[in-house]
């Protein structure tokens, strides 16, 4: 291959990297069930998909505003319990329940977000954490509706046409389809006019305000969007497992979500899925040492943050660029 053809191909790949990336991801998702249909493995990947949806939303908020939310598990809880209560106690259809769950989360996040988003930094982190504690307490105490500490069981699965989405392969298709749609939306958002404004907001809030980006409104928008995605994840969680309990949505889950965002890289869409995958899979790898589980879990987290503070995707990209550059230099040295 001569230099020109090679340059053209590189240009083609580079300019279509987004579309090709999503296409490759879609292909991988489609082909995965042929690679393995082991229910245990698929259970794990489905869990990654569920978390990814919430993490993608949270990453839009954290990445663009530079603020920490330690309360997004509360919105997952709102999604999951709205779905659960409506289908179990009122006998609604799962899809309708999902829609109402999303609406409920949107309403709640607006009500909470408008006053609270005036806060920033540690105060906002604390306020969101506080909201999560309050929601967790309500779930524990209102046991007439939520089942209290023992949880709410018997939530029906989603149905597509006449098929109930209840086995791992069907769940895989539905869940990862949602992830792909959210990912594609997230990647595209950056290229729209408001999205460009959000990118400025991500870099510098004062600068964004000077350029005419409606900062306060943008923050509330991102907050509500992330809450809605968390609620979708929560609702799908409820229909996937058929059972929800308050401890699935405690403050540790919220911190896990935020950790996934930071691990993958703030504002990185691909990083969100990678971060979710790492945190979901970590306990599996440290299964060997049951007693050292938390120890290993935290240790790996600290190690990744120490080595790649800018997030894994950017860390890997930089490492590859460095290796490439070294190889190039080696080649030119050899030629000289």
């Amino acid at each position, binding site marked *: 291959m001569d230099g020109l053809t090679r340059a053209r191909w590189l240009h083609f790949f580079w300019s279509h990297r987004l579309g090709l990336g999503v296409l490759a991801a879609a292909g991988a998702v489609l082909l995965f069930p042929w690679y393995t249909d082991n229910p245990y493995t698929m259970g794990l990947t489905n869990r990654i998909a569920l978390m990814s949806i919430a993490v993608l939303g949270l990453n839009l908020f954290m990445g663009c505003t530079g603020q920490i939310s330690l309360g997004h598990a509360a919105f997952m809880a709102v999604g999951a319990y709205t779905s659960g209560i409506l289908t179990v106690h009122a006998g609604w259809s799962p899809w309708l329940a999902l829609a109402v769950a999303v609406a409920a989360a949107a309403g709640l996040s607006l009500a909470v977000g408008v006053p*609270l988003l*005036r806060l920033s930094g540690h105060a906002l*982190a*604390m306020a969101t954490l506080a909201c999560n504690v309050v929601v967790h*307490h309500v779930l524990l105490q209102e046991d007439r509706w939520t089942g209290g500490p023992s949880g709410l069981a018997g939530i029906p699965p989603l149905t597509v046409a006449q098929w109930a989405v209840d086995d791992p392969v069907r769940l895989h298709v539905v869940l990862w389809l949602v992830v792909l749609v959210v990912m594609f939306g997230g990647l595209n958002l950056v290229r729209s006019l408001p999205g460009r404004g959000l990118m400025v907001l991500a870099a510098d809030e004062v600068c964004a305000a000077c350029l005419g980006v409606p900062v306060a409104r943008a923050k509330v928008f991102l907050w509500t969007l992330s809450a809605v995605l968390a609620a979708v994840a929560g609702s799908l969680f409820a229909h996937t497992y058929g059972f929800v309990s308050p401890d699935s949505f405690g403050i540790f889950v919220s911190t896990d979500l935020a950790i996934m965002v930071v691990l993958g890289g703030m504002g990185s869409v691909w990083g969100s899925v990678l971060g979710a995958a790492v945190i979901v899979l970590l306990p599996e790898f440290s299964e060997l040492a049951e007693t050292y589980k938390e120890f290993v879990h935290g240790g790996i987290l600290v190690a990744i*943050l120490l080595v790649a503070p800018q997030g894994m995707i950017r860390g890997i990209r930089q490492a590859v660029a460095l290796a490439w550059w070294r190889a190039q230099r080696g080649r030119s040295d050899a030629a000289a």
Partner: protein
Amino acid sequence: MDFMQFVWAGLGNGAIYALIALGFGVVHGAMGIVNFVQVDLVTLGGMLLYSASVLAGLPVPVGLLAAVVGTALVAMFVERLGLRPARTNHPLVLVFLTVGISIVLRGAIQMVWGKNRMAVPPITEDVPVRLWGAMVLPQTLWMMALTVAAIGALVWFFRGTNLGLAMRAVASNPTAAAVVGIPAGRVRMAAFAVAGACGGLAGALVTPVTTLSADVGVLLGLKGFAAAILGGFGSFPGAVAGGVLLGLVESLAAAYVSSAYKDALAFVVLVLVLCWRPSGIVRQ
């Protein structure tokens, strides 16, 4: 009178929250981050007291001292081994680094002390004292007295010693402090030691009253964080005011509103106060 009873209980808890909040404030002053390891230093303080007084049979005051020194040392290690090697100054990444270290430390505590609840004898015998119409446990009085003493020591430390002065310099402008030759790393390590001592003291003081396990430490630590934010993060009078207010609100809410929602109500009040006054109740 019941009311005074609840006020005393609230003040006792408030003193603990204030101590933890002070620890948060010291590290925030030196590094500008929330140090979530503080949460586990509280647990560690209680556990060390348990080991010293129950397992090793030392008298409680000696055990208390050992707990405080031990947590301060662990906090110094945390800064030196966990935070200083980080290749970034980004506060958000550092905050999550502390979350990671906190998980490691919690794992380590569970490995060493197991998951059981620990009970420790109080400093002086559990004979309630009658004070302003309420029966008060001596341990509650110890909590308040030692917290006041710790606050006094902190004020002296920050105003009267070179290290304290250096810490304030690093807090107000790290670059300028480095230019005049203040070793920022060592000062931050000292800040962690102070924070660790506060957290350890809080944990050791509260253990005889509540019994301690890893998750109790977490809840206490988070309430300390809430107290710090409530008062105004980084402000020392704010930390004390926030701690006392949070303790009182919690105790009175449990008594007169709903005991089931005791923990939640404290956080609701926190959110309301933050909506009304975003930078905390004490103006800086």
